[in-house]
């Protein structure tokens, strides 16, 4: 039975990221989560499998910590969870990520569709789907706002900056969906319980022969400071606060 593969990334929740006073970035206390937009990719795989037939499965590339993502992904409706376990994932750029995912997809072998989100919520680099397509020399459709299946043909609506396109392709293919492509369901208790019984398949980088060498080097990571006035009126009567604000905005010359 042909697989429909949803790729996702286990990322640090940006709400928990701390910027220290020296602008260094502390992600140690950040909880992990399936990248927000990748939930749309998982949902698209589950929905598409219902129409196309085949099995919706998920695939991630992450270090040991990302193991906890598998149950979450499985509770969102996919039938099997695949995981490329490599410590190198932490510093992987677009090249390495695509190599790892493409190698795993090749190993999985039988697939009709690979679904990614446009970008991950940490880096939002929007490279993965086109790069996987290139690595496997498959056709790619990005910016997908609607997905339809007719036989073995995928018909996609693409939402670009200034136009809508309807394009079609024979499967297998790689697509990147926009957040508006669907509304992911929040897993209920039953789905979470069922997830614990679904198969998890782990690949090690040796199994896949992934080359982790890349030509981009991260030289610095620091907090971004938005230099703002931070004049916050919290005390006193509403009318007085409004008056004060209106006067300040007039002085700024922005009215």
């Amino acid at each position, binding site marked *: 039975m042909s697989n429909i593969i949803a790729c996702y990334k286990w990322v*640090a929740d*940006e*709400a928990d990221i701390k910027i220290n006073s020296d602008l260094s970035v502390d992600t140690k206390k950040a909880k992990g989560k399936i990248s927000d*937009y990748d939930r749309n990719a998982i949902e698209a795989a589950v929905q598409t499998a219902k129409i196309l037939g085949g099995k919706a499965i998920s695939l991630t590339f992450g270090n040991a910590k990302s193991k906890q993502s598998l149950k979450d992904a499985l509770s969102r409706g996919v039938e099997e969870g695949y995981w490329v376990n490599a410590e190198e994932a932490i510093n992987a*750029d*677009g*090249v390495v990520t695509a190599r790892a995912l493409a190698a795993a997809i090749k190993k999985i072998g039988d697939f009709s569709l690979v679904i990614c989100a446009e970008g991950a919520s*940490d880096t*939002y*680099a*929007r*490279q*993965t*789907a*086109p*790069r996987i397509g*290139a*690595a496997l020399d498959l*056709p*790619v459709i*990005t910016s997908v706002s609607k997905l339809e299946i007719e036989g073995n043909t995928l*018909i996609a609506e693409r*939402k*670009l*900056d200034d*136009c*809508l*396109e*309807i*394009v*079609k*392709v024979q499967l297998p293919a790689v697509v990147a969906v*926009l*957040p508006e492509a669907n*509304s992911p369901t929040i897993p209920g208790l039953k789905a979470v319980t069922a997830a614990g019984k679904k198969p998890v398949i782990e690949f090690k980088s040796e199994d896949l022969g992934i080359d982790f060498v*890349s030509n*981009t*080097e*991260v*030289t610095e*990571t*620091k*907090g*971004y400071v*938005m230099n*703002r*006035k*931070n*004049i*916050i*009126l*919290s005390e006193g009567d*509403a009318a007085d606060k*409004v*008056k004060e604000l*209106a006067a*300040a*905005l*007039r002085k700024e010359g922005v*009215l």
Partner: protein
Amino acid sequence: MAGIYVYSDRFDIAAELIRFAKETGKEAAAVSLDEGAAQQLSKLGADKVYLLNGDSPIAENYGKAIAEFLKNEGADLFVVGATARGRDIAARVAGYLGCGMVSDVSSVNYIDGKLVTERMMYGGAVVQSEALKGLSVVTIPAGKFEAAAKEGTSEIISIDVTADNRVSMVEKAAIVKEGADLKAADKVVCIGMGMEKAEDIQMAKDLAAVLGADIGCTRGIAEERHWLPVEQYIGISGVEIKPQLYISMGVSGQVQHMFGVRESKVITAIDTNEKAPIFKSADYGIVGDMYEIIPLLSQALKNI
């Protein structure tokens, strides 16, 4: 030819990228998939303009062809305008070349011969600097450089290439914008999840009418509650705005949203939660109930 190769599906961005390429002192070449565009680009002082001829109406279908072309030419860098189409093409080219790529850079420079970039991560909370070796790909958003001035006529070199026709066009239509073009708005009133009912949007509209502002919203308002069209949500996956004045009501200030407003001249926030992150990124703020504050503010601004 070694040097910097530039492509954008938008002429205005291509002109800015040519300027960047020329300023590095390296050879600057423009890549085009369309004869008309190649003619226009040839007026901007690039050393060469390459017209890649193929039989597909979809620019993305030339990813592999562009990669092969750049490899044959011995290019140093491929710079692409960061539009939806541009990002796709750039990542495919990087994929076929198996080379490094930095997306949506906020700055790009050659320092001591090394290509150095900066970009935002975690929805704008973090800046990451990178150094790139060898042939690389970078995407650059509009407005990072001035447009190259008209200067001479570049030689146009036409090359026949093979497009990847597996994806074919069924239909194409211009997007009819339902709301205002927020990107160009001078003032924006923004609605967040603190608003209780869809009818209350009227309150925001009243304030917007007084200010001559356009209405924007957070992703939740557009995608979860469907109160406003998705074209009107501001943030990393939505619209990025640069108005003189941004006023929010009931917006907590998640980083993804703040990424889209960071270019605003004055950020003003109204929210009940004193600890809402938006106040840390605001110039002015009122901690208070929007249902009380906004009507008072509309009234006060009407009288100014």
